[in-house]
């Protein structure tokens, strides 16, 4: 059976990605186009006849004229001009049936390309609910393009589209009836084929009336953010305890059954002690992403950008920076990639530079470990978790520092011309379970891949470095003190002594340069090896709380607000800005801030609390 290659194109917010998810399910591959920072999403499905259909999800754009990278990629792929990409057999142009005035203009532009195409009229259910009547036969006649109705968020909502693709209809190139006036043509077609009872949906009006209310809008946003961070701490607890318990059980089994020696030490210390310390945070990361995905899917995120635009522009940013910065709370890498939606290059560079200051989920293991070990688990006002409040404060500190840095950047900028906002606020939508599940699955996989890839490798190296060359004759200290890692830790300890880091932390910081959460697994390994042979450091928290001072713990937390300990972030900055200088400047200023902040925190805490 032959393979059919189709490309999905459309305006932002037309439901293209939902359609893509519905068609291809989990069979997708996300990557970048070679040499540019435009995301390439590809998937496939097998139609009922056995025909294989390759689906390419092109970036959402408003126009093919503009010169942005997204527009150029979309146009070049449709025309088969991009090297290394096969020309699609059929372009499926996706339009939101409730927003045809805007989307039809783009359809007309795609038509001008002169390639075989069909129109997927998406969100037909929402259109019907709003009383919008679309005469598809007339629309087809006026456009000269085959029109197929879809409801991308329903399981059988793409049946007609699949049947059409399966039926092997000879691809049809529409005739171009040029008049030169796209808007005029759109208006004529709408008048002929569409009856609109009302300008907008009542639900959108009502919700925007409340959520964008000048007085209520920002308080509501604050409450939403606050609930998210409380939930990360409280909802995840049962799952985390279960993971901890099973790690402890596993550790027990290993220490009792395996004979003493290197193998036992490797499995107990590097695998269970190290990786176990990080895997515990999977539930929190999933909960955080769950909320971010819901906010994204529901259409609330651009509203938040609307509310904050004025404040953020005073800090030298734009409301558009909000979405990348919020994503950076999950991980700076997708956050920095999301800055592609910021069209102004100055705003984009500033957003990239401060994205690493947002508290990413890799810091969560570090904060959670330290907060859990050193701060009391009491309730404030009887219902708020004190530890949750401190975590919230850590997030606020990150955001506040980001705004300050952005102000400083704005002061030094030479080009002070106008920065545009112009942002579409899409209709509100109920988040769809399938899209949520695919998004969460992706995130969980990335986390697990990091654990089994980077973290496993680095941790194994660390175990080797902390185990060898081994204790000399007559040595009295634990093994690790005589190891390579121990030596290096002791060498660099003087640099970090003013900020209160002991040599174990120094050892953990070195592999922690690769990725932040590695520091936790590294600490797990370091303390497991230093400890007696029969215990596995599954209870790293209680161990450090008995060995570190409060000042050291707080100083380490302050360090982690700033320190750019993530090679992947630096690599993605290099890719997105195409400049090593940007990488150097960003890493340099972050390390400097980290040292200063940790120094101040340590000295002040030490002065007031002693130890």
């Amino acid at each position: 059976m032959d393979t059919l290659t189709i490309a999905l194109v459309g305006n932002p917010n037309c439901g293209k990605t939902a359609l893509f998810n519905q068609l291809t399910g989990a069979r997708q591959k996300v990557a970048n186009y070679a040499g540019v920072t435009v995301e390439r999403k590809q998937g496939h499905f097998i139609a009922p006849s056995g025909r294989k259909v390759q689906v390419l999800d092109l970036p959402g754009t408003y126009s093919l004229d503009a010169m942005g990278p997204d527009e150029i990629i979309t146009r070049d792929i449709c025309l088969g001009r991009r090297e290394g990409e096969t020309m699609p057999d059929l372009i499926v142009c996706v339009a939101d049936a409730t927003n045809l005035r805007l989307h039809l203009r783009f359809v007309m532009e795609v038509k001008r390309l002169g390639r075989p195409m069909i129109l997927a009229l998406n969100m037909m259910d929402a259109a019907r609910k709003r009383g919008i009547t679309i005469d598809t036969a007339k629309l087809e006649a006026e456009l000269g393009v085959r029109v197929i109705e879809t409801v991308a968020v329903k399981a059988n909502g793409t049946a007609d589209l699949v049947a059409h693709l399966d039926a092997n209809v000879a691809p049809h190139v529409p005739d171009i009836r040029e008049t030169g006036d796209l808007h005029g043509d759109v208006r004529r077609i709408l008048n002929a084929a569409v009856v609109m009872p009302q300008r907008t949906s009542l639900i959108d009006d009502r919700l925007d009336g409340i959520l964008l209310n000048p007085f209520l809008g920002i308080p509501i946003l604050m409450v939403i953010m606050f609930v998210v961070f409380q939930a990360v701490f409280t909802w995840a607890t049962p799952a985390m305890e279960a993971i901890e318990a099973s790690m402890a059980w596993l550790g027990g089994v290993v220490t009792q059954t395996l004979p003493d020696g290197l193998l036992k030490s490797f499995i107990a210390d590097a695998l269970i002690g190290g990786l176990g310390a990080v895997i515990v945070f999977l539930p929190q990361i999933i909960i955080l992403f769950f909320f971010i995905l819901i906010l994204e899917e529901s259409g609330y995120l651009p509203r938040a950008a609307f509310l904050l635009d004025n404040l953020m522009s005073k800090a030298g940013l734009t409301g558009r920076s909000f979405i990348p910065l919020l994503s950076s709370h999950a991980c700076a890498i997708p956050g920095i990639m999301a800055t592609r939606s910021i069209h102004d290059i100055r705003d984009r560079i500033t957003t990239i530079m401060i994205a690493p200051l947002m508290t990413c989920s890799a810091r969560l293991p570090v904060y959670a470990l330290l907060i859990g070990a050193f701060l009391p688990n009491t309730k404030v006002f009887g219902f708020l978790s004190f530890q949750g409040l401190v975590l919230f404060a850590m997030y606020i500190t990150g955001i506040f520092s980001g705004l300050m840095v952005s102000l400083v950047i704005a002061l030094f900028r030479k080009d002070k011309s106008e920065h545009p906002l112009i942002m579409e606020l899409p209709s509100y939508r109920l988040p769809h379970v399938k899209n949520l599940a695919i998004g969460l699955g992706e995130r969980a996989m990335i986390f697990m891949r990091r654990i089994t890839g980077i973290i496993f490798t680095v941790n194994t190296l660390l175990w080797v470095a902390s185990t060898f060359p081994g204790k000399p004759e007559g040595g009295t200290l634990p093994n690790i003190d005589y190891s390579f890692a121990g030596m290096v830790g002791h060498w660099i300890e003087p640099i970090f002594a003013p900020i209160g880091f002991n040599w174990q932390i120094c050892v953990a910081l070195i592999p922690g340069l690769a990725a932040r959460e590695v520091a936790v697994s590294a600490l797990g390994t370091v303390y497991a090896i230093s400890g007696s042979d029969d215990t596995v450091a599954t209870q790293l928290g209680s161990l450090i709380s008995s060995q570190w001072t409060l000042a050291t713990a707080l100083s380490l937390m302050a360090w982690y607000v700033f320190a750019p300990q993530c090679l992947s972030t630096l690599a993605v900055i290099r890719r997105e800005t195409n400049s090593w200088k940007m990488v150097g400047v960003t890493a340099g200023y972050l390390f400097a801030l980290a040292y200063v902040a940790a120094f101040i925190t340590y000295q002040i805490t030490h002065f007031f609390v002693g130890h």
Partner: protein
Amino acid sequence: MKLTELPAFAPGLVTGVIDTHDGDLISNRLRELGFVDGEPVRVVGRGPIGADPLLIQIGFTRFALRRSEAARVMVEQAA
């Protein structure tokens, strides 16, 4: 009048978008997004600080426009 001067929720009609300088990219983008002669337009919300940005309803679409952007759009109040 300018779109920034249109009273909240009052129905208006776009008469055009002016360029503040040669090759004004912001004005171009506005025209691409449908701010063209004869389109019905309304101001349906304002940002919480300095009444900026404005929430603009044009046709069936909502846009957030900063005041400086909205000031490029010329409108007349519809009857």
